[in-house]
């Protein structure tokens, strides 16, 4: 029953367990790097990401784009409009030429013009992206912040803190938000909190959307924190004497970054739709500032004479939401915890 002692000596080093030696050249990869590698192989997600990036660039450089390719967004071009039907004329020089079903798309007006007053649609869509994305990003930021902070506190501290926060989430989710938003729109003064006009309206939109959708992310964070709290590395940190702050910020939060990022990416399109819905209902920014939702609501009166006026803002919303969703889905797959063990 004696094991020869000469063999194990050499065999031991052949073991996979044996100390890794001379492998300095293999760089360390963090989970984020692994996720990025996986994301790059996902063409659909990558496509979504590129579209998202383009949209952001478009919003940022809206003045430049309209300067090169269009007209100021609020400039009227009544000469293009058929006074009888309010539609867009086929030939601006001939008032009897009839209605152009493409809405007057030309080199001059890339996406045609609006009925009634003939504002350049391309410019309005480009400027509309600014409002849509700004509101969506800010409100997502707001609800992710509130949701993460309260979710971690509820999950980590437990007890009465958890009870209070969880009940608050239930209440917020049960709130008749749309009615509240419409009612609020009626009572917003022109000036408040040192903000006025559109700045105030945007702030209100961000507040409504962000403040009422945090429970969704709050619940996710709370659930994740509950399971992370039981992991041994948290216990290990406690056994080294780490305080609550260290455990929350250094141990738990880094493990939440991936789910939060993924959820935020998926929340943005929801918020874009929400903003559009609120603008559609007239709660959004004041005209004549262009927003996609507001354009949609206006277009419905003219769908017979100017179908493009319905289709183009609708497509803008559709493409944006789709791009964010594809990107978010890809992000989620890339961060899939099952394959990172």
């Amino acid at each position: 029953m004696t094991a020869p002692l000469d063999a194990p000596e050499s065999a031991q080093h052949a073991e996979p367990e044996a100390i890794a030696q001379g492998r300095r050249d293999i760089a360390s990869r963090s989970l984020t790097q692994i996720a990025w590698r996986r994301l790059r192989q996902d063409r659909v997600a990558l496509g979504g990401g590129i579209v998202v990036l383009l949209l952001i660039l478009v919003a940022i450089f809206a003045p430049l784009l309209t300067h090169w390719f269009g007209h100021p967004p609020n400039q009227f071009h009544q000469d293009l409009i058929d006074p009888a039907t309010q539609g867009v004329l086929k030939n601006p020089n001939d008032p009897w030429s009839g209605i152009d079903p493409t809405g007057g798309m030309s080199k001059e007006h890339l996406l045609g013009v609006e009925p009634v007053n003939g504002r350049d649609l391309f410019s309005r869509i480009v400027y509309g992206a600014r409002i849509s994305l700004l509101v969506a990003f800010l409100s997502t930021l707001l609800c992710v912040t509130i949701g993460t902070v309260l979710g971690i506190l509820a999950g980590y501290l437990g007890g009465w803190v958890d009870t209070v926060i969880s009940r608050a989430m239930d209440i917020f989710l049960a709130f008749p938000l749309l009615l509240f938003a419409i009612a609020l729109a009626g009572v917003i003064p022109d000036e408040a909190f040192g903000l006025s006009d559109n700045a105030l309206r945007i702030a209100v939109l961000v507040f409504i959307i962000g403040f009422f959708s945090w429970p969704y992310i709050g619940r996710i964070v709370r659930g994740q924190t509950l399971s992370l709290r039981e992991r041994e590395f948290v216990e290990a940190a406690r056994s080294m004497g780490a305080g609550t702050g260290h455990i929350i910020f250094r141990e738990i939060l880094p493990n939440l970054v991936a789910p939060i990022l993924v959820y935020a990416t998926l929340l943005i399109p929801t918020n874009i739709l929400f903003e559009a819905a609120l603008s559609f209902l007239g709660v959004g920014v004041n005209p004549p500032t262009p927003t996609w939702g507001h354009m949609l609501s206006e277009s419905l009166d003219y769908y017979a004479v100017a179908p493009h006026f319905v289709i183009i803002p609708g497509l803008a919303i559709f493409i944006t939401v789709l791009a964010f969703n594809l990107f978010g889905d890809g992000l989620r797959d890339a961060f899939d915890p099952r394959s990172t063990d």
Partner: protein
Amino acid sequence: MSTPETGSQGNGLPVVSVRDLSITFSTDDGDVHAVQNLSFEVAEGEALGIVGESGSGKSVTSLALMGLHRGTRAQLSGEIRVAGIDVVTASDQEIRAMRGNDIAMVFQDPMSSLHPQYTIGNQIIEAYLTHRPTASRAEARRRAIDVLDRVGIPEPAKRINSYPHEFSGGMRQRVLIAMGLVCEPKVLLADEPTTALDVTVQAQILDLLDELRRDLRMALILVSHDLAVVAGSVDNVLVMRKGVAVERGDVRQVLNSPSHPYTQQLLAAVPRIEISRAQRRAQLRAEREGKTTPAAAETPAPSQRSTDEEPLLSVRNVRQRFRIRGGLFGGATDFYAVDGVSFDLYRGETLGIVGESGSGKSTLSRMIMRLLEPTEGTILFQGRDITHLPERKMRPLRRDIQMVFQNPYSSLNPRMTIGDSIGAPLRIQGERDDKLIRTRVQELLERVGLEPSHYNRFPHAFSGGQRQRIAIARALILRPQLVICDEPVSALDVSTQDQVLRLLAELQEDFNLTLIFVAHDLAVVRQISDRVLVMRKGKVVETGDSDEVYENPQHPYTKQLLAAAPVLDPDAARAHRAERRRLRAAQPDTDVA
């Protein structure tokens, strides 16, 4: 001891024959050869043990035997025949008929292998009716009660209507075996059937499998990572490594005179319950002196304990109460996880705490760590009462008490580099000099046998054993007096386990550590402990010098535990089995799992 004739029990006709089997998975990083050119045969009534570490291809092989590779990305070549059916080419219908009728499988995790929404009776009846469509339901039910009785479920006629959650782990494994037996298969395939179970329960399940195959003249294929588990239960052994069979033969021959170096290495790694602490220490020291520079050999002998010295740690009558909600009328009932434990621990000593799951050993170590506040009793560390010390005052003391956790996969934060993880205790204790932290971390990485330049890697780049080394480094960076190891090797393969145990023994000498070593594996505890504490249901049933407890156990529970411990020598294992039967007959009330 009716062993030698077991090999000739069958008529020599193979019920399972595998020829030149290769299984390949294609992945993004190229083909992975899980199994290569594997051949073996199992005769009727024969028992074969397949042994190997994780990644050796043993589980893939057993899945292929059941035809469960179908519909996966596995590519098979070669031939598998089970009871005359060619598993590789047979139609799906034939395979379905084969499963259950000819070959049945018992899986590793009894907790997840039973459907939680159906009674066990329903699940067994269902299995029976699938293969005997002409049988009536009443017949199937009778048969189900029969097999439940056969596998030792008390009051089978009543228990047949119970749901899986009403059974313990061992009982569930019995139910799964019953489900496998219901159609009287020719082969029973058990894939790590006892890995998730306690020692005594493991012994009972292995005894049951052994008994069943003898009584029902079934062939048994027992897959395990632990040679000691299969030693007493099989006729032949197949040792696998990285998909290749390295050694095959009669169990006595393989275990007594292994020919392949890997088998020898595996055998050397299995912790021996019969080797005493002193023998093991001497052996390790000899190996170390032979290997390292003479400087290391000069380490002083471990300090001898003198009884008048003040104990480093003194635990008096501690109890930990947990409230269990949902008792009768919604009231809470009290449950004492640890119930009146006392001991002293002296500097340089190692105390082993042994017990099965639920014995309160982990709760006890968390109380000493002050991750839990004891409900009653006192804990003195270096003469200071830390029982109810608030966390703020506890913090400076945490320098001196550190812990190595059981699961190296969850005790390291996956989002932190290992350097940050190991350095975290220093940082938490107020060290601000990053350069100093880095140097200390790299020193320790080297000390525990890892490459210091891997400082910036994340835990997922390391194997289980390497992660446990990292966890040990983290526990040592503050130069603690006392290190509590809570089942530090139970999640590791046998050979990795051996390496980590060696490391701990070395470190104990070099850093003059006092250790509390918690484990359910008796052999492991004996090798490392000076004194042993045997726990059961929150109470200490026996305590004493480790050699004394192991060689002359006083309490019947200790005896039962020792009799249940797997041993490598096939004949000794069979003797232990006979002893277990005797003990069980003598005191039938002691927990049937």
